[in-house]
């Protein structure tokens, strides 16, 4: 069931109740849950926040709190699985799902009370109609039992027999011969089979691609706005949420631009509302065109250019010639190497002010036109100035900085803390971590491309990391690596169809257990985030008989045994050709 009026049908329902908020491990979910927590705090509602990773985590978390809570809010999780079947909740428990993963599970959509999906049904694409996928099995049984009487009657009704003389007709129809009745049954069975195959086709079409809907953070922010409880902090979190979608390729650039316009109006409204003129304490969000360079405000320009996916791949910066081209670009920009090699913050003020326009001017010439995009920056006090992308990269790095003494939950909470303005040191630590991560990605890409480790399987590329890696054993980092690698490979490859092929990257997860992580990403030329790997992985696993662990809420991220990998890839190759 879709809940469109969030204020009345979602928030008002919850006021005064105790709520369990289950949050998935992604930045959008963290942002959304922070906004929701702020709202709950205003209304003094008791809540409990539990971070979870994957379906088993969801099950465990619900199991622990079962019986204590009647209202559960799921953030960016649970939309794509049948919640009622998975969790077996008691009758009086209500689930509210705020999930940007698509396609949503049809059982959740057609649940009449227990599962409410926040969002607008009209925005959802091609949801199968109820009657095409659900067969009224209760009616079916009755029909079977009363085959003798009711069935022929129905037949008559359908054929337009008068209602009034039904009683006269009924005895007549009883006289249908055995043969006719048998025929009817066969016809019915055939119709049923037809309907089933039709249903399977529809369901396949519906679930074939996994993609993403609106950012959860943005949705919750709009709720806050409608409740007139929005402020700068909440808006910033929403912006971080949607920027995550952009940077991880979960949103089409077209719809991103549309959302930008809406956010801009929120920004100007809130800026006018807050009359805090003191520059020291006021936080200010500004919209501006920015560059797709990772963390360039906190890094030397040369490093940032080299480690950013887009600029690096367009200029092929991992090669010697690319390096020369970078110097050429810097020369033409008029940026002295001395300045380009020191941290951006320490660069000459004049150069810093002109940096954006310098890059923009030469973008066309160096074939990096798409480096400019619209985004928001947050300035707080005199020194801290962060782009939304800086936040996203830092949080990603924090979330995956799992170490021996630091569990994933710790990382999650740290990331959630880093969002608030009071914890600036956490954020700057995260930025440093992100730098390490990006440098590692770049080095890995460089060595892999030089050693030609990206192989083609005809309809897709694959890349297998042989040993466990401190960074890439985590889904997001592996995703970043895979995306960079695919772009880099396409940039160097001569094959004409290369931009149309997707990539599968794999990295060992845990040497002791012999599991490995598998990530499938969309082709370079594809702008939309539609990813068919989720379904393809599932089918390939079925065909090859490999045990696949699709535990993550991202369907294109799976785990399997290291030893099964070759078999799995073979069957995937067969499936996709």
């Amino acid at each position: 069931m879709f809940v469109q009026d969030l204020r009345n049908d979602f928030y008002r329902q919850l006021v005064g109740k105790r709520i369990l908020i289950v949050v998935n491990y992604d930045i959008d979910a963290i942002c959304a849950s922070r906004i929701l927590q702020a709202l709950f705090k205003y209304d003094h509602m008791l809540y409990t926040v539990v971070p979870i990773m994957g379906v088993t985590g969801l099950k465990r978390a619900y199991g622990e709190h079962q019986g204590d809570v009647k209202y559960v809010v799921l953030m960016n999780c649970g939309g794509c699985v049948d919640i009622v079947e998975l969790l077996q909740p008691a009758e009086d428990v209500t689930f509210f799902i705020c999930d940007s993963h698509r396609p949503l599970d049809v059982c959740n959509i057609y649940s009449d009370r227990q599962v409410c999906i926040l969002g607008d049904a009209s925005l959802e694409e091609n949801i199968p109609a109820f009657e095409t996928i659900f067969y009224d099995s209760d009616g079916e049984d009755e029909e079977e039992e009363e085959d003798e009487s009711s069935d022929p009657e129905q037949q008559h009704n359908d054929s337009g027999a008068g209602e009034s003389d039904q009683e006269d007709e009924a005895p007549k129809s009883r006289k249908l011969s055995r043969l006719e009745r048998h025929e009817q049954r066969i016809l019915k069975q055939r119709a049923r089979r037809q309907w089933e195959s039709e249903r399977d086709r529809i369901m396949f079409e519906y679930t074939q691609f996994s993609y993403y809907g609106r950012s959860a953070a943005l949705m919750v922010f709009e709720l806050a706005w409608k409740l007139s409880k929005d402020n700068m902090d909440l808006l910033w979190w929403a912006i971080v949420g949607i920027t995550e979608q952009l940077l991880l390729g979960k949103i089409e650039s077209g719809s991103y631009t549309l959302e930008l316009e809406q956010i801009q109006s929120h920004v100007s409204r809130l800026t006018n509302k807050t009359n805090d003129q003191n520059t020291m304490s006021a936080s200010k969000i500004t919209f501006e065109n920015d560059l797709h360079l990772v963390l360039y405000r906190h890094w030397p320009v040369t490093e940032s250019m080299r480690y950013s996916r887009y600029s690096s791949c367009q200029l092929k910066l991992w090669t010697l010639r690319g390096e020369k081209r970078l110097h050429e670009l810097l020369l033409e920009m008029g940026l002295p190497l001395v300045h380009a090699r020191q941290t951006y913050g320490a660069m000459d003020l004049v150069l810093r002010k002109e940096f954006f326009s310098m890059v923009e001017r030469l973008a066309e010439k160096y074939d990096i036109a798409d480096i400019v995009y619209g985004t928001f920056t947050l300035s707080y006090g005199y020194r801290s100035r962060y782009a939304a992308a800086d936040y996203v990269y830092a949080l990603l790095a924090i979330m995956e900085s799992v170490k021996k003494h630091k569990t994933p939950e710790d990382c999650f909470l740290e990331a959630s803390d880093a969002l608030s303005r009071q914890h600036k040191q956490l954020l700057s630590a995260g930025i440093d971590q992100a730098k390490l991560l990006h440098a590692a990605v770049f080095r890995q890409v460089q060595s892999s491309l030089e050693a030609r480790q990206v192989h083609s399987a005809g309809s897709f590329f694959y890349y297998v990391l042989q040993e466990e890696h401190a960074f890439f054993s985590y889904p997001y980092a592996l995703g970043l690596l895979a995306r960079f690698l695919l772009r880099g490979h396409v940039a160097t490859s001569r094959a004409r169809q290369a931009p149309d092929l997707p990539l599968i990257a794999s990295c060992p997860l845990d040497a002791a257990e012999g599991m490995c992580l598998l990530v499938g990403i969309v082709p370079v030329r594809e702008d939309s985030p539609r990813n068919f790997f989720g379904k393809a992985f599932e089918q390939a696993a079925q065909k090859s008989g490999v045990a696949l662990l699709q535990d993550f809420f991202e369907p294109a991220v799976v785990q399997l045994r290291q030893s099964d990998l070759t078999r799995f890839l073979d069957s995937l190759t067969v499936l996709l050709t």
Partner: protein
Amino acid sequence: MSRQTKLFGEKAFDLLKELERSSQTIPAFDDDGVRQVLEEIKAIFEENVAQASTYNTSGDRSLWPLLNFRHAALQRNKRCLLAYLYERCKRIKALRWEFGPIIPGDIKQALCEPEVTFFNNYSKSLAAYMCSAGYNQGLPIDLTNNLRPPKSLYIEVRCMEDYGKFELDDGEVIHLKKNSQHYLPRAQVESLVRQGILTHIA
């Protein structure tokens, strides 16, 4: 004489400076320092008495300013000592509010005998006051509960270890598990926060 290079009152001043500068809640009682100051006072007093008696007999006023000066020094020493004791008493009172009626062992070592007695007496009178302050007799109010007025009735806490189920006054059962975050009534979880099971997040 080398002793004469020292000024009057320096010891006493040092005592105070030491107290002021120490980073501990309450430094150990400086027995030695106090005794030295007392000795100094005694010496000054004896000298003054001797000279005052010669003045009485001879009426020689030439020593008059010196006498006055010594007296002022003596007074100053006395003031310093009192200030020292008073400041310590103030800190001991603060201890009672912070740590409750029992002094932690490491702090107890820093106190001298009369100070411990003072603490006990203070604690007793505070307890007596709290008993009498209860609106309906028999129910004492714990005044040490909220030293600062709480900003809100609820606080956001994070669970540091697996605690299990925790029931609130209104019957809600909260499952406190490591790394979960909760928003709960302050009064009821305060004790858990003190025990370190929950931490308050700002």
